[in-house]
């Protein structure tokens, strides 16, 4: 365990030093992301407040929804985006084979050596600002219970997002075609920018039970703000995010290992 902590830290140092090798680019990137996300947040806010309500959610509540999603996404992506989007290329170039000749699990080595996209600092910071503004606009009383709830929801959301990245990268073990599954994931994710109660029941079902992205923001936000969930769904569902997160994360690693086995026996 001590070894792993040391290992984690030394790879983290390398990741930071790599980004800092081009300080200018890095800072410009952060500022660019900031501007772009601030614009997106503003657009959604203006849209929602001028049309009044989306479902039974007002502007500030939708901002909580969006802020939570972005925060969880950015946390998951800072560890798993490079890993997931680069796997296909690394397999083709043969770099991935290097991970199979190291004395640690190749999954861990891949995460360590290409993970930590510290550029997501911009997403994380702006999401936190938006969440704070939106919650204070709603005159939400911060309690210890509330903070713990938000934290656990964000971590669960990050795990769900991580699982989505891991699962979609598994595809690379089977085919040389790039990114098709990752793109699919982004398309599905677009649904959760708005409360899922506005969608037809089929889509609600998919986002809850098949590709459960709704657990990244809708259910946690519904629990936090005391909102309605789709009719007929069990009332404890909004509190299930941590279970869904841990379960999906574990499943995605199993899936990835299964893909790896396939790669090792076929050479892809």
């Amino acid at each position: 365990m001590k070894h792993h902590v040391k290992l984690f830290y030394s790879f983290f140092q390398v990741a930071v030093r790599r980004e800092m090798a081009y300080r200018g680019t890095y800072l410009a990137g952060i500022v660019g992301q900031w501007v772009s996300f601030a614009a997106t947040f503003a657009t959604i806010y203006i849209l929602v407040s001028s049309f009044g309500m989306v479902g039974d959610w007002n502007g500030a509540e939708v901002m909580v929804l969006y802020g939570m999603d972005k925060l969880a996404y950015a946390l998951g992506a800072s560890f798993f985006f490079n890993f997931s989007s680069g796997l296909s290329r690394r397999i083709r170039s043969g770099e991935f084979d290097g991970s199979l000749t190291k004395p640690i699990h190749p999954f861990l080595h891949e995460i360590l050596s290409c993970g930590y996209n510290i550029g997501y600092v911009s997403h994380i910071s702006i999401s936190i600002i938006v969440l704070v503004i939106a919650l204070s606009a709603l005159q939400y009383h911060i309690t210890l219970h509330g903070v713990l709830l938000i934290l656990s929801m964000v971590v669960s959301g990050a795990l769900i997002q991580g699982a989505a990245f891991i699962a979609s990268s598994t595809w690379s073990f089977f085919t040389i075609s790039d990114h098709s599954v990752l793109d699919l994931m982004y398309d599905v994710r677009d649904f959760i920018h708005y409360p899922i109660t506005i969608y037809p029941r089929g889509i609600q079902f998919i986002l809850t039970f098949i590709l459960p992205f709704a657990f990244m923001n809708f259910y946690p936000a519904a629990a936090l703000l005391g909102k309605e969930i789709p009719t007929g769904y069990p009332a404890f569902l909004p509190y299930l995010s941590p279970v869904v997160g841990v379960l999906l994360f574990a499943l995605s690693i199993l899936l990835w290992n299964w893909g790896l086995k396939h790669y090792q026996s076929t050479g892809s």
Partner: protein
Amino acid sequence: MTMSFIEVKKLCKDYKIAKSEKGISGAVKSLFHREYTVKQAVRNVSFSLEKGEVVGYIGPNGAGKSTTLKMLSGVLLPTSGTVSVGGIVPYKNRRENARHIGVVFGQRSQLYWDLPISDTFDLYENLYNLPKEQFRKNCDYYIDLLDMKDFIDQPVRQLSLGQKMKANIAISLLHDPDVLYLDEPTIGLDVTSKKVLRDAIKEINAEKKTTIILTTHDMDDIEAVCKRLIMIDQGQKLFDGTLTDFRAKYNSGFSLKLEFDSVPPAWQKCSQYELAEQSEHQWIVRAADGISAKDAMIDLINRYDPTNLYVQEERIEDIVRAAYEVNK
């Protein structure tokens, strides 16, 4: 019967090459139904190595060299057959095996592009959980041996191909592996860098008793560092033995270089000599078996009166080429 350090028995590897279709619908379709063509990359290859041997593994492109190394290092599972390296089955006990091997796969760098080599060194210290003392000692040893002092703190992107190869080799050896697999270590390097690498490989083998398997296209690598060579083509082993035996088996004699001041006379066809190459003022003539060099020289001088005449022992590269032809 005692086991050799590395035992490879009846090793086979088939690649199934899937015909993939485009887009998501194609991808989904191919999930349920796929067509394959099977390529036998390695066919029934067996050999054994003793500790401390340096073996050249040669063959043309696509012969199965890299595939064999991948099975030896635990990257790929064999389709059939077995591998044992120091009593460990690499593909079953991949992580344990990884502690005992060093791998350099051609130009696929293990270095971080934007960082100096020294950073990657530190990373490997933690990756292999090396004792401080062993790490420091090996760093100094390899930096000195491979003459890396001048560029150890430069970002990798500024380094030449040769410098990067040196760094990759050093990194793969920091944990004192028993075996070193080198896949095309000299490809694309200039003559000086090649020599430095070859000398270093010999030195490492002598000093650290590291068992080394290297694949190469460059026969000079083999002549410089390997006593033994294994030749494969189309996945099958064609030769396994010493360099001397290899020459004896496939050597078809010697060749002579004739140089002319002016336009050479017409070539007279005969059974004893073969005109292998011809340029404006120069011929390369191959002599048949059984003719002595002395007789051939007198004969050719009498017939063609060249300005200069050199006798050349056949280069191993030509022997290999001839051997592939014979086995075709």
